[in-house]
């Protein structure tokens, strides 16, 4: 361990000791002071809270904690960021709280991920919020891969229609992986879906066991746990979900540049680019399921919203920040301000017809009421 790290851990130790008495402490070491010429200084000596409507530990929480740990030097002098977990109702509870009870003082932003977006999109009971009333700060679209057991005898996505019994394991029709279900709808791919797995992890285990034979995993889980299966010859990658870029277009996943996207598979199979309701529905489900985003209240001080966006703009130009981000989040772009909204718009501005199409298809295929 070098001296610098020793110093840092020593400091952390002191802070930790202070926090051990069950008070939620704040510690953020502002090491590298970045270029702050264009900041208003709204967050100098202040603490920004990221309201995270889930328990600690999941993917979205980890993304929020990455921001909390790495962004402060770009946000202001001695600025700090703290993650506040408010779990409940799969994310709806904490987001309602943001809508109804959080002050518009600029010191709290909301973390958005699949959990609150699907209930919002489908207009579920209990949803009191509307993302379109918030100011977009920054977002990241993280991809994922559909793969199959190699004993199915498939090597190319075009052979999927020849396989006699595709079995896919899922949590519920409204869960994050329903991206895969929406992709199957778009491709009009016959399959059997088994619902009830606790999360994507056990669903992956089910594929390894042979209980299912086709599966979807997000990039981080795919890289660490499916790639070894591919190397061993147990699994074959088929296609990626694609990611949505700053212009709102679906492009190849930078983590899997060699894999075709759903849209390419569609084009090859049907000889035309995907369009129409099924395509709108797929993009709505994809951005809902794959984008993590920070929102501020629209009536928060202008200076705070500007500073937050500026912080991300500065950070994403810093090679050091990007390197750290790639190590934790995968090789995905940081979308800031309007870019973030554009990426999310296929969900937020989805047409009622596309939603009805989705509801009808899911009811017919899976007997599910969205």
């Amino acid at each position, binding site marked *: 361990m070098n001296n610098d790290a020793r110093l840092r851990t020593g400091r952390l130790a002191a802070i930790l000791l202070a926090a051990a008495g069950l008070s939620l402490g704040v510690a953020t070491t502002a090491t590298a002071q970045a270029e702050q010429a264009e900041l208003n200084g709204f967050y100098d000596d202040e603490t920004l809270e990221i309201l995270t409507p889930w*328990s600690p530990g999941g993917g979205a929480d980890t993304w929020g904690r990455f921001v909390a740990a790495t962004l402060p030097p770009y946000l202001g002098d001695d600025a700090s960021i703290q993650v506040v977990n408010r779990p*409940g109702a799969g994310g709806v*509870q904490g987001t309602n709280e943001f809508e109804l009870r959080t002050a518009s003082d600029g010191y709290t932003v909301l973390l958005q991920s699949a959990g609150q977006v699907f209930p919002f999109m489908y207009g579920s009971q209990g949803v009191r919020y509307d993302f379109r009333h918030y100011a977009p700060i920054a977002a990241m679209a993280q991809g994922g891969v559909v793969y199959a057991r190699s004993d199915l005898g498939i090597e190319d996505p075009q052979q999927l229609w020849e396989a006699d019994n595709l079995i896919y394991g899922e949590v519920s029709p409204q869960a994050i992986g329903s991206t895969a279900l929406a992709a199957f709808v778009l491709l009009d791919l016959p399959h059997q879906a088994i*619902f009830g797995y606790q999360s994507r*992890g056990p669903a992956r285990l*089910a594929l390894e066991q042979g209980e299912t034979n086709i599966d979807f995993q997000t990039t981080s889980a795919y890289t660490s746990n499916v790639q070894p299966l591919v190397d061993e010859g147990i699994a074959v990658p088929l296609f990626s979900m694609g990611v949505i870029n700053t212009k709102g277009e679906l492009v190849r996943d930078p983590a899997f540049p060699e894999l075709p996207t759903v849209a390419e598979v569609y084009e090859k199979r049907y000889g035309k680019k995907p369009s129409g309701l099924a395509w709108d529905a797929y993009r709505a489900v994809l951005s809902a399921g794959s984008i993590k985003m920070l929102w501020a209240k629209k009536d928060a001080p202008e200076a705070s919203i500007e500073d937050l966006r500026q912080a991300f703009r500065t950070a994403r130009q810093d090679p050091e920040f990007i390197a750290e981000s790639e190590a934790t989040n995968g090789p995905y772009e940081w979308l800031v301000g309007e870019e973030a909204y554009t990426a999310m718009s296929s969900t937020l501005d989805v047409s009622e017809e596309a939603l009805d199409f989705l509801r009808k298809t899911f009811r017919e295929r899976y007997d*599910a009421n969205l």
Partner: protein
Amino acid sequence: MFEAALEALSIVLDPSRLVFMLLGVSVGLIVGILPGLGGVVGMSLLLPFVYGMDTYAAIAMLIGMAAVIATADTFPSVLIGVPGSAGSQATVLDGYPLAQQGRAGLALSAAFSASLIGGLIGALVLFLILPVARPVILSFKSPHLFMLTVLGLCVVGLLAGKYPFRGILATLFGILIAMLGSAPASVTFRFVGDSTYLMDGVPLAILAMGLFAVPEIIDLLAENRAVSKVKTLSEGWKSGIKATFTHRWLVLRSSALGVAVGAIPGLGGSVVDWLSYGQAMHTTKDKSRFGQGEIRGVIAPESSNNAKEGGALIPTLLFGIPGSGTTAVLLGGLILLGIQPGPSMLTSNLPVTLTVVWTLALANVVGALACFLLSRPIARLSMIPASKFAPFLIIVMMVGAYQNTRQWGDLVAFIVIGLVGWLFKTYDWPRAPVLIGFVLAPSIERYLTISASRYGWSWLADPIVIVIGLVSIAILFAGARVKGKSQTREAS
């Protein structure tokens, strides 16, 4: 691998990292002692500091915290009849009566030494089994997991006490509570009405505290006496350690059970203490003393709930699938440290895995020693009259309950369940089956749904399913026979 293990030991013993392990251990001790707070709260406290820390120091801190909770949570279980965390509910059954008889010292020292051995066995098994665990875990498909949860339910038969029929009803009541909230495999919410609180169901920690702690405190206050019915603390600490060694086979069996149950993803560690208690009862000739202060009823759950942590880390590290709330947060911490659990934990990340193993072992030793030191002053709590400590305790429990979701619903649920628990206690209905039904119900439903929709009826013909089914029936009958015997004895 042994060479690598020694190298990892030197990593762990580096003073700058040892400090962090001790820090984690102290947080774990505090969180364990305070009723209602468990591993998730401890992890959440430490998580904000993890990013940017030295990888091994951070792991030592997190694992150190998680390892000692199951040791420290014995204090409230024994001394005030309140489970210190979800993993030490069964300890209450016999540990608390011992404290009432003024033998808290015996119960605590037996529990700590059993915890220590259980924890060490957990770490050892984790080390030995990791290279070969993958195929074993993969062999449990949904129908097998379903049958294992059924087996867990059958243990209720052993715990129900004098009234088997009440035991069955209490189990069903627990299953009924578990039905509140979102249903697995679909997008429906059951019995929630307009409440967003109930959408996630009732938190386990609140149910456990409400059922066991509130009735105890009400009764203590009503009689305004201390927990201990005698004036002096008798029996030294040595007798407890001696008891653990006398029952060494029980310790080994319970630890093995703890590791096995902890390692199966989806079964969850929160019933392991009950399974272990049932097993201790089943293997003891004179069952009449269970529930009255039988030391075997303390040793068994305490050795298994520490061993469970070693088991629960197997699916977490090998597959990136957390087996409990605590390991779920640990997983988040590892990802922040740049470690993606998976098969690489046995290759490129092997030093990390071995650090986990060593920390688990060391933290168990340190935690048990600290508990021994703390036990003398803390045991005096059982001598204080209820009117003096109950208000403090109620506040601590309310705060603990509120940590679950930080909604007002937590407090309402705590009070309502507390009153129900008091009714159960007053009318002599068994409370343990409620908890077991509650914990197992989601898994039963989940795995039955998957088995039926994936395999139709054919899964019933699977040989492993049949074997576990036969064992379950045998356990049910064994429980019924025991009761038949004790009833005839009472009658004569």
